[in-house]
């Protein structure tokens, strides 16, 4: 089963000028390509979403940098500390932990193994000496999805499905709504949660119910559940916005376009920093401005939509838009 996790990838860490030699962990001198790097995934690797894109990152690192990364999947929350401890004591250079929920454990274990760097994806914090975080402003993706959706609705009703009310998910749905209402304040967005990452039938039925109640664009942030919502949109002849993975091909004609995550690039960037000795124990937060998010367009999309999207992206890059989610 899939574990609780936060949803979203990020991209090549900002180049960020390295300060003094402080606490960097890997030693550039002996970069004889013999790095020991591992990727910890909270769920199964073929979840068609969060974990699967991480795996793509692993493959990219291997292809582009020639460094073989290991991975382990479905790591249970109860085992986080044990796993960190194990890799620390075995002298790994870099441990990727693919989800914020790893952060506490990383902070607890980190200090015992100063030679290992723990990089927690989706964490916006880091801690001396060796825990870093790369947060992804996932809501920025939701925002763009909201614009695409809003410009394709006739009924002025749309549906947004989330897995769990985690901040990233809730923020994404909220941003989706905010963007849509910016386009047209009359638009109503129905938001629901399914408490699952994998119950594809529930995703489908939820989207069907939304369509039956008048929504004509569906958006979903919940891994496999999203495939269910796309299937429902196809059945009902309404539209969907693809998310995370390039999903245009899942249902051509139904998926308007996909907002995708460049997770692979994010891994590559971090490994590059390791090689360059530039890893820093701090948290960064990445979004459109950092190339973490991307668009997969279909031919059905008109130029007006593209223009509106690019305009919004520019605003996001400029930091002119705030995350509508403020926590509970």
């Amino acid at each position, binding site marked *: *089963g*899939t574990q609780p996790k936060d949803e979203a990838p990020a991209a090549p860490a900002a180049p960020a000028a390295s300060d003094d030699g402080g606490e960097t962990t890997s030693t550039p001198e002996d970069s004889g390509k013999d790095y020991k790097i591992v990727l910890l995934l909270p769920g*199964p*690797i*073929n*979840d*068609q*979403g969060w974990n*699967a*894109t991480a*795996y*793509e990152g692993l493959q990219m690192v291997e292809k582009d940098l020639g460094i073989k990364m290991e991975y382990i999947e479905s790591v249970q929350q109860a085992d986080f500390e044990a796993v960190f401890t194990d890799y620390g004591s075995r002298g790994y250079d870099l441990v990727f932990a693919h989800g914020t929920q790893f952060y506490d454990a990383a902070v607890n274990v980190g200090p015992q193994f100063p030679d290992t760097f723990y990089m927690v994806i989706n964490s916006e914090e880091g801690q001396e000496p060796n825990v870093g975080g790369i947060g992804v402003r996932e809501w920025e993706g939701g925002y763009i999805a909201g614009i695409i959706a809003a410009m394709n609705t006739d009924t002025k009703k749309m*549906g947004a499905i989330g897995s769990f009310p985690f901040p990233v998910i809730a923020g994404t749905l909220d941003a989706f709504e905010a963007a849509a209402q910016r386009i047209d304040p009359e638009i109503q967005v*129905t938001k*629901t*949660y*399914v*408490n*699952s990452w*994998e*119950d*594809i*039938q*529930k995703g*489908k*039925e*939820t989207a*069907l*119910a*939304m369509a*039956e*109640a008048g929504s004509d664009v569906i958006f979903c942030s919940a891994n*496999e559940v999203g*495939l*269910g919502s796309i*299937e429902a949109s196809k059945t009902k002849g309404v539209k969907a916005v693809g998310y995370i*993975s*390039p*999903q245009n*091909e*899942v249902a051509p004609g139904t998926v308007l376009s996909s907002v995708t995550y460049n997770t692979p690039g994010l891994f590559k960037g971090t490994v590059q920093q390791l090689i360059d000795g530039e890893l820093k124990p701090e948290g960064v937060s990445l979004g459109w401005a950092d190339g973490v998010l991307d668009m997969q367009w279909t031919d059905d999309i008109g130029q007006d939509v593209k223009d509106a999207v690019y305009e919004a992206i520019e605003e996001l890059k400029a930091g002119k838009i705030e995350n509508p989610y403020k926590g509970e």
Partner: protein
Amino acid sequence: MKDIFNITFLIALLSASIRLSVPILFAALGGMYSEKSGVVNIGLEGMMLVGAFAGVVGSYFTGSYWIGTIVAVLSGMLIAALFALITVKIKINQIVSGVAINLLAVGITSFFYRALFGITTVPITVNAFSPVSIPILSDIPIIGEILFKQTALVYIAFILVPISHYIFYKTSLGLNIRTVGEHPMAADTVGIPVEKVRTACVLISGALAGLGGSFLSLGQFNMFVDNMVSGRGFIAVAAVIFGKWSPTGVLMASLIFGVADALQIRIQMSGVSIPYQFLLMFPYILTVVAVTGIVGRTTSPKALGTPYEK
């Protein structure tokens, strides 16, 4: 909320209920065969998962979703054969065997998916069922919309109910199954091969659970994703008990569960202020209430759960 409870809403609700109840109905009917013969089958979940996976594999390699469905049935039977071997022949506790089968099914479906298709970010899609409108019947107002514009597998599920009823209560085969489940020793003394009957019933349960799984992957979708059964097999186990081990009872139980689930989704959308988690609980609580209020003292097959030893 205002315009929600009208006739279109009702139609939509009931068709959703049917879709949601069909996988449960398939598996629960299967579970009923197994339980009627005295074998508790907690492994339905795993058997469904195997069916869901095998259906996609079959359709992928042959291009035919019907062949896919047959492959699903056969694969369900294959894993059921293992279950029968360990529970009926070797007589390992049926509950723990079921738990092990579920664990195994999660593992092998995921393993073989990766072995065949690699690790994908977008799932492999295959040919799958599309809804078939039954001529004339589908034109009946309301009912036609709800009942007769479904995929072929839905019709099969519902036809299986009267067929099972006939088998259980009108044929000697059914009598033998019931005898084995009530009093295996008595069955033995009249020459009914207890272990063979149980094995056959477990195989049937695997076949039907496999069908239920393929309904998910081929009837509702055209793809397999890990763990896509998501607990429906456990609900089916409950539906067997809830339905008092009778085909019509199982049908009712599955439908009630389907309605509850469909309703839950719609209430959540209507924007009521009940936390959504409580709505998600609703079908489960309803089952408890129904089991307590309606079913009452259950009369399970007497020998249920006990391996037969001379």
